[in-house]
């Protein structure tokens, strides 16, 4: 009997080897009962604040990240460089390039002819932001946007750059931004996952996305991004099979819970109770998810705003609309990826196709959030993983050219979530190659996003393999100048 009791205690506390010995060892054992994390990794409890609650009153409660996968050219979108048009065809001066490494795709080029934007730019809004003709709808909401033209990253190829942008590390398997938010803030709506992922593919040259971008890394697997598939059933295997009624499903779950509780009484393993909770959440999701995919209650005005493509599952517009609905339903972090922005060649044509697909729906999302009073508390981010070169890759003609990868400067925009609206931040040189004012490193971007969500990026840590990790690792500062 004593032995049974002892084993049970051990199960509960997972302390299998302590506590049997004389006074000295006994002291250690007693002490160790006070510290569950002594022999394994775990939350950085000493300096970290409790998880599940923002550290300070947040400006944003949720994030929608419209990731433009493949890296859209900043020079045809938000970073206007007329000088490039004047100097078109001239070689990029070495004094500007200044030893910047190149990808294998252009390192063999004997010349780096500068090339200006094929598309014209105009100024929009009170901020007078320059935006290219490719994005007329985004231009119309210029006063809601904070355009950051001085992003820079460390990676020069898609995979590491994407991984860096998403997880704060170029090497995979660190938790994604969304996973950190889920870990730090928990779920607002207990009937849906806190971190969801939506994919769409454009008509331009594309690059892959893969589940490591929305991984929970070393965090608990409940923080992993949940990929919604584009079909009628966004979450597979959620619905009851044909001929199973709601009532019999309920009955089955009740009986199962009863059995599980009996198991728990016997072995005391908390995982059993966690499992019961998960069954219950899945049961609730059976009603919560169909509500999300049902577009019949959306007004005509909404459909017109996003464009009719939004009725076709799997398109960018449909995902943007779904993102609004997810956000409205309390999902902390909605991550979209739109593929097809890798214009090494045929840029003027491909970019027009890509822009056509995202322009209307991106602007519509911001407007939609705004008219529902949600923009204040929802941070929308639009951008890629790096920029594109100011010189041409491959053949250069009047109306056709390509651009290679460029980590030194690129543009993104943010809206809502307590970010200053109607603002342009940062500046690049006349040739759009180097940042000359207010650089924003990827770590700084992460720190700022976390700050808006009410999290101190230096405080939210997780201990793993003997050290504490942060999304921003050992760097990053909040860009206060863009905070409203």
């Amino acid at each position, binding site marked *: 009997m004593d032995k049974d009791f002892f084993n049970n205690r051990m199960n509960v506390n997972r302390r299998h080897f302590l506590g049997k010995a004389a006074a*000295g060892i006994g002291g250690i054992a007693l002490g160790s009962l006070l510290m569950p994390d002594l022999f394994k990794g775990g939350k950085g409890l000493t300096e970290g604040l409790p998880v599940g609650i923002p550290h300070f009153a947040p400006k944003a409660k949720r994030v929608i990240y419209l990731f433009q996968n493949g890296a859209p050219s900043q020079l045809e979108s938000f970073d206007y460089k007329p000088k490039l048009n004047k100097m078109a065809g001239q070689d990029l001066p070495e004094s500007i390039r200044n030893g910047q490494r190149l990808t294998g795709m252009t390192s063999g080029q004997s010349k780096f002819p500068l090339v200006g934007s094929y598309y014209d730019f105009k100024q929009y809004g009170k901020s007078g932001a320059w935006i290219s003709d490719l994005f007329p709808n985004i231009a119309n909401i210029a006063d809601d946007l904070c355009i950051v033209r001085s992003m820079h990253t460390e990676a020069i190829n898609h995979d590491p750059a994407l991984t860096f942008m998403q997880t704060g590390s170029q090497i995979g398997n660190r938790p994604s931004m969304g996973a950190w938010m889920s870990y730090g803030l928990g779920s607002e709506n*207990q*009937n849906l996952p806190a971190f969801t992922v939506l994919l769409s593919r454009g008509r331009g040259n594309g690059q892959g996305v893969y589940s490591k971008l929305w991984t929970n890394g070393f965090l608990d697997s409940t923080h992993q991004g949940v990929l919604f598939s584009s079909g009628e059933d966004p979450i597979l295997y959620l619905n009851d099979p044909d001929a199973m009624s709601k009532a019999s499903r309920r009955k089955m779950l009740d009986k199962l819970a009863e059995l599980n509780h009996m198991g728990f009484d016997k072995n005391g393993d908390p995982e059993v109770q966690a499992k019961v909770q998960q069954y219950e*959440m899945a049961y609730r999701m059976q009603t919560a998810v169909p509500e999300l995919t049902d577009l019949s209650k959306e007004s005509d005005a909404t459909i017109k705003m996003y464009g*009719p493509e939004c009725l076709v599952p799997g398109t960018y517009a449909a995902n943007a609309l779904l993102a609004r609905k997810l956000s409205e339903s309390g999902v902390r972090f909605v991550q979209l990826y739109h593929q097809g922005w890798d214009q090494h060649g045929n840029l003027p044509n491909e970019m027009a196709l890509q822009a056509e697909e995202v322009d209307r729906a991106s602007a519509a999302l911001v407007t939609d959030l705004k008219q*529902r009073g949600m923009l204040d508390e929802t941070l929308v981010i639009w951008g890629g993983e790096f920029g594109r070169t100011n010189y041409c890759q491959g053949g250069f003609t009047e109306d056709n050219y390509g651009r290679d990868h460029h980590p030194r400067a690129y543009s993104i925009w943010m809206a809502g979530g307590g970010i*200053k609206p109607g603002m342009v931040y940062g500046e690049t040189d006349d040739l759009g190659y180097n940042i000359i004012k207010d650089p924003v490193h990827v770590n700084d971007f992460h720190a700022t996003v976390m700050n808006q969500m009410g999290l101190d990026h230096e405080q939210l840590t997780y201990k793993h393999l003997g050290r504490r990790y942060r999304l921003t690792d050992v760097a990053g500062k909040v860009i206060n100048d863009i905070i409203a």
Partner: protein
Amino acid sequence: MNKVQKVGSSILILLNVMLVFLLIFESKVDLPLLFAPLGRVHPLFLHFPIGVFFVAAFLHLGSKLFKETKLDELLQFLFLISAFTAALTALFGFFLGQEAGYAAEQLKWHKWLGILTSLILWVAYLSLEKSWKFSKPLTVVSALVILITGHLGGEITHGANYVFAPLQKETEKAFDPKGPIFSEAINPILEAKCLSCHNDKKMKGELNMASLSKIMKGGEDGPLWLAGDALNSHIIQSAKLPLEDKKHMPPKGKPQLTPLEIAILEQWINQGAKTDLSIAELSEGDSLRQMVMKQYGGGKEEKVYEFSAASESTLAEVKTPFCTVEALALNSPALKASFYVTERYDPATLENLKKVSGQLVELNLAKMPVSDEDLDLISSFENLEKLVLNSSDVTGENLEALSKLKNLTSLSLSGCVLEEGSLDKLANFPALEQLFVWNTGLDVAEVDAFEKSNKKVVVSRGFVPTDEDMLKINPPSLVNKSPVLKAGEKVQLKHGLPNVQIRYTTDGSKIDSVSGDIYENEISVEGFAKIKTVATKEGWYVSDQKDFTFFRGNYKADSAWLLAPTHSQYPGVGSSTVIDQKQGDKANFKDFAWLGYKGSNAEILLKINAKDKVKGLTVSYLKNVGSYIMPPQEIQVWAGNDRNSLKLIASKSPEALKEQGSVTYEGVNFAMDKSYKYFKIVGKPINKLPKWHGGAGQEGWLFIDEIYLY
């Protein structure tokens, strides 16, 4: 007595070892709630060791004054009690120290000395028991340690310098953003972190930081900063050296500059190290201003709520899986509540929120069937600041009930169907700043009038489509999951928007917004059918045309033979390929579901089950012009009841292609006038690709799959 000592002594060992252990692994301690009350009795319990020990110490030191024969035994007992209670006190103190709210610096020395006290009293007890000669000096040292420890503990509870505070005058000064930046923001940092070693009395490195003029003289390494050049300023350089570096300042072990403090100094130096500039002069977005505000409070501008927090148990009572109630932020008493999942809305949950009516500042009821009467209940949440009623059942009739909410700054009514005159009821809302009325059906004039008479309210009307927003509607989509219909299955179309008309043709004729049939419920097809569709809706341009192809058979052939071989690359799965009731993937012609032919004819023999009354058959083939897979030049059907003497009964030649087109399923239907036992299908691939094709003149491929019987 001996037994007590023996047991007490071993418990003492245990306690002390545990104490030292806890101290070493302190960073990993996660205290169970159970121990918290023990921690709280620390301030009470600590009086025992002090009292008992001082009595014991007097007895011990003055033992000559007493003649009691049993004094030794009594002393040992008292020392044991004091060592024992000291160990417990230290342990409890340790527990108390785990609670939040104690300054780590202040706590550190008290903690170390507390544990030292426990250890030293233990040794004092041992020294007495073993009659060591240093017993008396040790008693004196112990008394001193107790005094110092106790004093430090007192300072934690009562505040630093508590004892002598009455003799000193108050010097604390509040941060004033209008004062000169050096004295308000910069010098306080230097005073706190540098002055103790660089002052009038102690000038380490010949540097005196007692006043600005003395700082400007610099030390042995030159001036402390170079205005406008933080990178080369001595103070920044030494602050940023690794902690282990000898030149790192402040030295290891001293209170360090925080990253924010370094950033402030750096930014200030970079902006010219102006001493008289005031924070208020800087623009609001200025980095230096924001950092200074963060350092000296007010930076986050967090709203302070006067009311007290709801208890944990009350919070647990109001939460449900479909109603989240949580604090706005850490340590904030204010709560926000959000309802989710329309189908699971329960009015009792809203009613239940009365329990936190004083704490609730945000309430989100979007999409919930909240009625006008419920507003009376909501108006009892006295501190509500933000209320979201988007797409609820509120009609506006009872909106004035909400005017009781003196702090309501934001009200969202988007998507509610509001009756005329609703906005008049909002005229007397005292704090309203934001109003959202998108898609409420309100008259533009009414919104205009409200805006005019309520200048401080920002009204958000949202997106209103105009005639310029005429868009092309998207085409219909298919309900059927597969292009191969089961026996009896009909074609079903759908569209995601309400009130959409779908038009279609099945005979290949032209389709537009006025021609073709109007889709009702379903469309019957047989054999191979190509349905052309468009969608139309009032206020939208007609959709692009969308074509769907279907195969439907009613019977399965008994068996099949390939009389002529396929091309060796595309053998399918042999003769059963054409009667397996599966259609090959059109996106993947390499799939083993296609029979490929080039240069020679396909010849396929089918045997029909006697009971089946076959009215016709369909030969399915693939069109993938880019991969040289073309429609056949001709398809012949031979029929008869003896497989060795079949007659040609029909032949069809699909129209030659004029352009590439997309990859599609195609088929040719043959109607039968009577029943036969055997059919032979002969398919002839085209022998020359057309002139417009990239491979003009080469042989084309023919890809055949299922032969359907209907």
